[in-house]
């Protein structure tokens, strides 16, 4: 303090100190690490252990994946090439990819047909899933089942055309009568459609499939992941409307309808899916004379649809029960009749509540389609467990095949789940 001048005053700062960067321990990577990974010594220990486990996993799997062989013709050759080193034998995928995707009997020169149907599926799903799109696009959705049927099964175009005609006639009958009463429109439409289909069945000649533009492919020749997709999509889209009807029927005041719905739901839910599939495959074969049974694919679709419809009905019933009684009374007080009240007030809210549950059933159902491998249909898992693992070239390849199957299923199921989360955010109208 000896150099303190007499005229000096208490220190007054007249400039700002230049901004300093935050200390290295309070910013950037270090801070993040400290906060998230090494906050306490216990966390630090856990982090180190986890890193070690991740390291072990990666060192075990990465060489196996990156050292994989893609271009040999059999497992034995694969092992020769690897010569004792670690590596996957992905050759089975590059050689049999078409069987994994389409089954082993779908004619290879026709692969473009299911592929095209797959692409069209996105165009058809878009207007349903993303309802901000113009409503006119729904025409594509309405036409998709018939187009896809024609593309995948081939044969005469008359079959899907008559099927479409039945639906169109049914729609017009519905539109004509629905003003008088919903029931008249609904049942009138069904009868009209049935009449058209019967007529179509009579008109289409026996040998119409012989020289069709697209060669006919019997259901038995379908397989692979295509079969899973077809079963999943058909059954989910059919079981949602049926599930709604069952849920409403279960709440009905009419004892007969109520009893039918309750018995159906409880019976189906009390039976494992695999049992229903055996019934579809085995029992129904006894009821029809040899060689004339209903198509196996159709039998399986009916059984899986019944199964998932029962579950979806219960999910939707949960949604209906969650609505306050005031909503029902509000609808009544506006003078709406039952169908109007349901369509305009109750169901939009109930379905919104039910979305997570419905998606849950849909994802489960999609994965359950692999059960058809037990009744000798060659879906993705059936192809792997049957023909591919039983070929002399590839007997013994497990990890590669089942990993490929998991990846395919994961992509689809994760996509569905992401969509449902988006949908819930989009539909959220309550105040948070």
């Amino acid at each position: 303090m000896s150099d303190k001048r007499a005229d000096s005053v208490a220190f007054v700062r007249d400039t700002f100190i230049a901004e300093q960067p935050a200390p290295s321990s309070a910013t950037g990577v270090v801070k993040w690490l400290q906060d998230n990974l090494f906050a306490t010594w216990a966390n630090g220990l856990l982090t180190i252990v986890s890193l070690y486990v991740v390291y072990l996993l990666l060192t075990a799997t990465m060489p196996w994946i990156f050292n994989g062989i893609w271009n040999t013709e059999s497992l034995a050759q694969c092992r020769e090439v690897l010569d004792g080193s670690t590596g996957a034998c992905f050759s089975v995928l590059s050689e049999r990819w078409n069987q994994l995707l389409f089954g082993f009997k779908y004619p290879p020169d026709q692969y473009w047909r299911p592929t095209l149907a797959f692409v069209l599926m996105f165009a058809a799903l878009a207007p349903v899933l993303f309802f901000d799109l113009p409503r006119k696009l729904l025409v594509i959705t309405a036409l998709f089942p018939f187009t896809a049927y024609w593309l995948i099964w081939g044969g005469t175009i008359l079959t899907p055309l008559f099927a479409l005609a039945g639906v169109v006639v049914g729609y017009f009958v519905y539109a004509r009568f629905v003003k008088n009463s919903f029931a008249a429109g609904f049942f009138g439409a069904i009868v009209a459609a049935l009449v058209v289909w019967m007529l179509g069945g009579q008109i289409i000649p026996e040998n119409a499939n012989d020289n069709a533009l697209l060669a006919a492919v019997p259901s038995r020749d379908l397989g692979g992941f295509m079969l899973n997709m077809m079963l999943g999509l058909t059954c989910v889209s059919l079981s949602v409307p049926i599930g709604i009807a069952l849920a409403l029927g279960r709440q009905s005041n009419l004892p007969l309808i109520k009893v039918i719905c309750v018995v159906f739901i409880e019976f189906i839910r009390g039976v494992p899916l695999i049992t229903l599939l055996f019934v579809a495959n085995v029992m129904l074969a006894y009821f029809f004379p040899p060689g004339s049974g209903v198509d196996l694919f159709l039998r399986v679709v009916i059984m899986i649809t019944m199964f998932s419809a029962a579950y979806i009905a219960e999910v939707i019933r949960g949604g209906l029960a969650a609505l306050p009684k005031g909503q029902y009374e509000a609808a009544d007080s506006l003078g709406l009749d039952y169908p109007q009240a349901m369509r305009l007030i109750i169901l939009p809210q109930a379905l919104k509540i039910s979305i997570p549950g419905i998606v849950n059933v849909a994802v489960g159902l999609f994965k359950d389609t692999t059960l058809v491998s037990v009744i000798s249909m060659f879906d993705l898992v059936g192809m792997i467990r049957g023909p591919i693992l039983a070929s002399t070239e590839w007997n013994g390849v497990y990890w590669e095949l089942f990993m490929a199957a998991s990846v395919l299923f994961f992509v689809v199921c994760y996509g569905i789940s992401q969509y449902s989360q988006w949908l819930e955010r989009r539909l959220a109208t309550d105040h948070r």
Partner: protein
Amino acid sequence: MKKTVFLGALTVAGLAAGAAAAGTLDDVKARGKLNCGVTTGLVGFAAPDANGEWNGFDVAVCRAVAAAVLGDPAAVEFVPTTGKTRFTALASGEIDMLARNTTWTFSRDVDLKFTFVGVNYYDGQGFMAPKALGVSSAKELDGATVCIQTGTTTELNLADFFRANNISYQPVPIETNAEAQQQYLAGACDVFTTDASGLAATRATFEAPGDHVLLPEIVSKEPLGPLVRHGDDEWGDVVRWTLNALITAEELGVTSANIGEMSAAAGGNPEINRLLGTEGNLGEMLGLSADWATKAISASGNYGEIFEKNIGESTPIGLARGLNAQWTNGGLIYSPPFR
């Protein structure tokens, strides 16, 4: 979207109900295709290749029958069946015959009402152990852990064998064959037991097949053969004698290589002549053409050729003929005479 098909099928079902009573042979001829039940996939016995063509030891029987009846070994609709669906598929008439490594047992023959037309493979339950274990006989397996598929006859046979020899074992129950292979390789059990043909096929897929030995004991009888429904003996005869024709052809030295020459004209051996239809009217008695057996043998060769091509020692499966050698070579394969 398939409702039209459904309704159409319903009407057809009503119409066809009356027609179903005709004989299977006539049905097959009218249809122009043989519906043959096979497994969904078993190495060497039946599996489709990369082009979707079915191949294998059991498949060859289907092809031979199709060739004998319809003259075309490709006129077969292969209907894959699982262990659970195979018998109902046959009983309901969905398939005309079943060639699916099915063991001929009393209850299947009598109670389920099927006719086993013969045996095309004599199998039996065996054991596989790592060479390092140093056992040379199943009787030395006292205290061993054994990988075994649950709910199969293998399980019961195993218990019987160990009890009869008064030795103890520790079963490791396992659901599927694939899982059993993995467990065995991982060392979860000392010994793996299943049908001997299956053991050989499994061993062939190992990275080092030489490190594992098949023990000499065979602890059960598993005669595998094609079968048809009870109640249509004419059809049963067709399948039975087609199989016998393949066996007799090997015995008499008729192969796919020399059959063209042998069937062209009657030769010196009367039985070959009767078999190939250059003499007598055996084909007519079956309701088939005179050269039915010629076509059946041309389809994929005689019994020995089929064996060698699909499961024999030149294939990765590498099964020795053993019990399945001709009776003249000390095996059990034996056909009644063509007379």
